[in-house]
């Protein structure tokens, strides 16, 4: 996916070093694809910043959910460090695997996971951005296939975390997102889906 971001960035007309800078500073997979689309489309700075940050608002809920799984009694690493690499992929992997680790190891395991993911993301972006131009020009199929990278990633993440919450939560979130798409901009539909899932889980837990 990182390589595909590098490819998508140069395809949108950005210099390779700009693509790498975006991955270093923003480090938010799906939002980066939207960012380059908006920038290439000539969106105003205020609207670009607003839309991308709204896309990332879902991360608001990741930190508390993750922190509740870390052993707070033996916290050694500073929270600003633990928060830095909290992407969709790192979150999904963490919540499905942290419980398998002893409490005192969880923090370092998580820190290693996010460091590895960050370095791979930046290196992959550089690979795609600096070497991808020739690949794209030589293959129309590759250019079209780039469009499936994000859906493939999200489906893989769903398979990773599907056992963590009941099926009705996921179905409710999907249904509310679809409804939201009819009346809201994309980021609004995402937030609506998230809130629907959380509300369903909250009500069932309270009723249990």
């Amino acid at each position, binding site marked *: 996916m990182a390589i595909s971001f590098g490819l998508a960035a140069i395809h949108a007309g950005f210099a390779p070093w700009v693509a790498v800078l975006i991955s270093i500073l923003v480090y938010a997979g799906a939002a980066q694809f939207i960012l380059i689309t908006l920038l290439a489309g000539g969106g105003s700075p205020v609207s670009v910043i607003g839309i991308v940050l709204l896309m990332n608002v879902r991360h608001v*809920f990741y930190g508390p959910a993750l922190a509740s799984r870390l052993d707070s009694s033996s916290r050694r690493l500073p929270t600003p460090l633990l928060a830095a690499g909290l992407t969709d992929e790192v979150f999904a992997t963490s919540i499905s695997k942290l419980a398998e680790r002893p409490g005192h190891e969880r923090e370092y395991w998580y820190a290693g996971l996010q460091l590895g993911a960050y370095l791979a993301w930046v290196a992959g972006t550089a690979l795609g951005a600096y070497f991808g131009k020739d690949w794209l020009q030589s293959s129309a199929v590759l250019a079209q296939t780039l469009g499936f990278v994000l859906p493939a990633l999200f489906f893989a*993440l769903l398979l990773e975390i599907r056992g963590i919450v009941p099926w009705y939560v996921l179905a409710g979130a*999907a249904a509310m*997102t679809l409804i939201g798409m009819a009346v809201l901009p994309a980021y609004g539909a995402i937030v609506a889906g998230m809130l629907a899932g959380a509300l369903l889980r909250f009500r069932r837990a309270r009723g249990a």
Partner: protein
Amino acid sequence: MQTGTVIWIVVVIGIGTYLIRLLPMLWHDRDGKSGARPANWRYALDAVGPSAIVALLVLSFWDMLSPMPTWKAGMPILAGLAGVWLGKHYLKTIAWATLGGVLAYGLVVGAMG
């Protein structure tokens, strides 16, 4: 758009995204010291991440299939999803599953011309 403008937009978004991740964790740490949340709140928090991922998946399919689903658009997607599932089932990791799906999608796109 000028490169200088792009850079400051990227810097602002980078700082904003970091704060979106950091501040809720800091608030959680502070609240955790004053007492645990009720269990139903914990369940609700746990549901938010998976719900976000489902929402992103729905949104990405919407983009690929709109304005009207067709067989030509649908067949590579079905192959790609099967590739993800096979990659996850046999190779276990998210990265291999994603790669498996992308390869399957690309193969069908290439075969359909």
